[in-house]
Each structure stands twice: as structure tokens, then as C-alpha cells.
């Protein structure tokens, strides 16, 4: 699609969509939302970019070589955080007894490992959604 209005409006609103997605991901333990909705909003912003600017420029925003590392790395990060509980002598995904910093209730840095787990889920969901869309668009062309 090569339309001036669509391209300019997309260029204006995409930063706000991404800021909102990052807000939802980082406030997952304080307010409604979390890793999955925030990651979906972040993925939708890049999908909007691909729709407005075409497949080639959209693909440069998140190539498959980076997406595979993001997806695998987020899952491995989640599992490593869960294994901390086992090494501390508790069950998988133990939060406070495993020695995570709890902080002040209501702050961004609080709740032990929950912000870190939410960040991993957000990266994984956003990357998966963008990769799914790009794969579909690419198969359309040849």
C-alpha cells in the first residue's frame, strides 16, 4: 500500500502505540495488563508499520535472525528465573523465599521476579506475533 495519508498517520501514532505497550508490560504487576496484552500491543504496532510501509521495510524492523534469538532467549530467561527457586531449595518459580528483591509495594521495581517474567513474556509474544505476520506476507509473494 502506497498512500501518503496512511503512511503519515502511521508514522505519527506508532510511537504512542509502542509507548503504551511498554507501559502495559512494565506495569503488569501493578495494574491490569501484563506480558500478553502488552506484547500483543507492541506486535500490533510493527504489524501496522508493515501494512503501511510494505513488507521489505517492515521486515527490516525485525528480521528473522533477530526474532529467533528474541523468542528463544525470552523462554530461556523465564526458565532460568524459575530455576532460581529450585536452587534456593524451594519449588519451581518460587518468588520471595528464593531471595528476589521485593521492594516497596506500588513501585515499578517490586514484586520480586514478576516484572522480569512479564518482560520476558512481552518480548516473546511481540516477537511471535510479528514473525507470524511476516511469514504469512512473505509466502503470499512467491
Amino acid at each position, binding site marked *: 500500500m502506497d498512500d501518503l495519508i496512511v503512511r503519515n498517520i502511521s508514522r505519527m501514532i506508532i510511537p504512542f502505540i509502542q509507548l503504551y505497550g511498554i507501559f502495559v508490560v512494565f506495569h503488569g504487576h501493578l495494574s491490569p495488563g501484563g506480558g500478553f*496484552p502488552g506484547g500483543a500491543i507492541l506486535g*500490533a504496532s510493527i504489524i501496522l508499520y508493515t501494512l503501511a510501509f510494505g513488507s521489505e521495510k517492515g521486515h527490516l524492523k525485525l528480521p528473522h535472525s533477530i526474532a529467533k534469538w528474541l523468542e528463544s532467549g525470552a523462554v530461556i530467561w523465564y526458565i532460568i528465573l524459575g530455576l532460581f527457586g529450585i536452587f534456593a531449595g524451594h519449588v519451581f518459580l518460587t518468588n520471595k523465599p528464593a531471595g528476589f528483591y521485593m521492594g516497596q509495594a506500588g513501585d515499578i521495581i517490586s514484586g520480586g521476579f514478576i516484572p522480569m517474567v512479564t518482560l520476558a513474556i512481552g518480548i516473546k509474544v511481540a516477537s511471535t506475533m510479528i514473525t*507470524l505476520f511476516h511469514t504469512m*506476507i512473505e509466502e503470499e509473494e512467491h
Partner: protein
Amino acid sequence: MQLLNVILIVFLIACAIAVEKTRDLLSAVIIFASYSLIMAVLWLLLRSPDVAMTEAAIGAGVTTIMFIAVISRTRRMEK
């Protein structure tokens, strides 16, 4: 508030029946997006804003784009 709830649910059922009855798949996808939007408002009225955000982002946003991408690769009309 009760009236709004009833109107939304009636519209939701109408959308669900229309998706099944429509022969044009592109129209069906658009009706399905409106179904997801109403469902998101209903989740909000049921005091579950978490699910409402997910429904608005996934149901009305990404699923619609995925369906349209699939329709662009296959036929538009149902046989």
C-alpha cells in the same frame, strides 16, 4: 446500565449469527472484529479489564489482520 448490557448482548448475538450466515468471507471477518470489540466492552462491564485489554488487542486487532492475510492468499467468497 442494565439497558446497555442488554443492548450489547443482543448486538453480540446478532453479530455471531451474521458471521455464520455471511457468504462473503471479508465481510465475515469485519463482523467478527466488531464482535470482538463488543466482547471487550462486555469484559470491562464484567469487571475484568485484564481480559478486556487482551480481547481488544488480539481479537479486534491481530486476529482480523491474520484472517485478512489468509483471505488474500485464498478465495474471498465461500463456496
